[in-house]
């Protein structure tokens, strides 16, 4: 599949060219524009019940749009995300990646998308009860609010809540107060995520919760 991510890093947008017979799945609402001959079908995300769960707990839409090219010439498709920021491509070759709620944009047909239990501590910290797990073979695209930083974690690493977007399954999350109750309240860091294990993680340079915290007092 031919693709090009333009306007990085602030307004990253995915420009795809679907060759005849090629298909891609994308988050509901991700399509900005496309050739008139591209077929578009709305499907439940991984079946009805998982779709329902995803929608309620995963922060994702329960629907996914299926774009296909059944003509004999290449067709253009433009996908984007709701927030401004960067888009990252992942090539899956049997490896796996977990996505935090809201990050998912699109995947190619060989990729399997599953809903996984993230635990109450994750939910308590506002990160959702579930996460998306990508496996199989193919390409996946996810978005971040702001720029994206890749970090190789060995043993332990601490990440502020709301900045972790994706991580390899070898990483275990432990959400906790950043440093005692008083310290957490006064430092403004609130919850932090104490990661354990080894693998790659992806951080976004801004968090939507941070923007909300900035705007909230101005709403009168």
């Amino acid at each position, binding site marked *: 599949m031919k693709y090009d991510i333009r306007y990085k890093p602030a307004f990253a947008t995915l420009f795809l060219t679907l060759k005849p017979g090629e298909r891609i799945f994308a988050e509901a609402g991700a399509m900005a524009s496309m050739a008139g001959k591209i077929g578009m079908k709305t499907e439940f995300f991984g079946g009805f019940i998982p779709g329902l769960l995803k929608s309620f707990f995963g922060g994702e839409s329960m629907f996914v749009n299926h774009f296909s090219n059944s003509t004999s010439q290449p067709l253009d498709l433009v996908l984007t995300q709701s927030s401004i920021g960067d888009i990252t491509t992942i090539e899956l070759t049997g490896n796996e990646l977990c996505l935090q709620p809201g990050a998912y944009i699109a995947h190619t047909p060989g990729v399997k998308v599953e809903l996984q239990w993230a635990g109450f501590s994750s939910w308590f910290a506002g990160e959702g009860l579930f996460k998306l797990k990508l496996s199989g073979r193919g390409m996946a695209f996810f978005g971040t609010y702001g720029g994206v930083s890749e970090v190789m974690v060995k043993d332990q690493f601490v990440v502020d809540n709301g900045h972790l977007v994706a991580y390899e399954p070898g990483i275990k999350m432990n959400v906790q107060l950043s440093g005692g109750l008083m310290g957490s309240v006064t430092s403004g860091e609130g919850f932090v995520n104490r990661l354990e294990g080894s693998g790659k993680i992806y951080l976004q340079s801004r968090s939507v919760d941070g923007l909300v915290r900035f705007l909230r007092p101005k*709403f009168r």
Partner: protein
Amino acid sequence: MKLDVLHQPDSAIAKITMAPQEELIAEAGAMVAMSSDMNVSTTLRKGKGGGVFGGMKRMLAGESLFLSVFRSGNSDAEIYLAPKLLGDILPYQMKGTELVVQSTGYMASTPGVEIDLGFTGFKSLFSGESLFWLSASGSGLVLLSAFGSIYEVDIDGDYVVDTGHIVAFERTLDYSIAKANKSWAGAFFGGEGLVCQFRGTGKVFCQTHNPGAFGQLVGSKLPPRG
């Protein structure tokens, strides 16, 4: 008149240098800075889209009821204009053709350009976006603003754009508003809401990001307005 668009694409601002006794019309609130001898008047624009009624129509379209008219004095003057959201500015040269502009995408124009409410749309049941389009005609310069970057598509045949991503398009194109999906259920749940289907030849200018979708992302976490 000389135009420089600075800080593209994320924080675009238009710097316009005007010769003596030149005029520029801009959306109220777009002015960031200007020479001190610039004459400013607020107008309910004259002509087809003008008067109180025209102003009301513009207000319905999500535009300000008022337009500001900037007129340089007896020497050269400078003015800086910027939109409210992060994003790019697109200068478009009108040559007697017609350009349809998404209502929030209009920022400024030169006096030879007629701005009218061409298409009084309806609030979309699905996407919640207001579909109000202004029509620009005549000749001169129009400055458009976008949320995100602007990409241009040269249409020859069929092309589909989500209504939240349209900045402007040339009226040489035929267009119709339609559901993105064939089935009503798909249109409702698919999240794409309404799309604009273009046919023919001409240019469409799209914004990479949908202000409504970003508003929803942030707004859903804000307390309801008391």
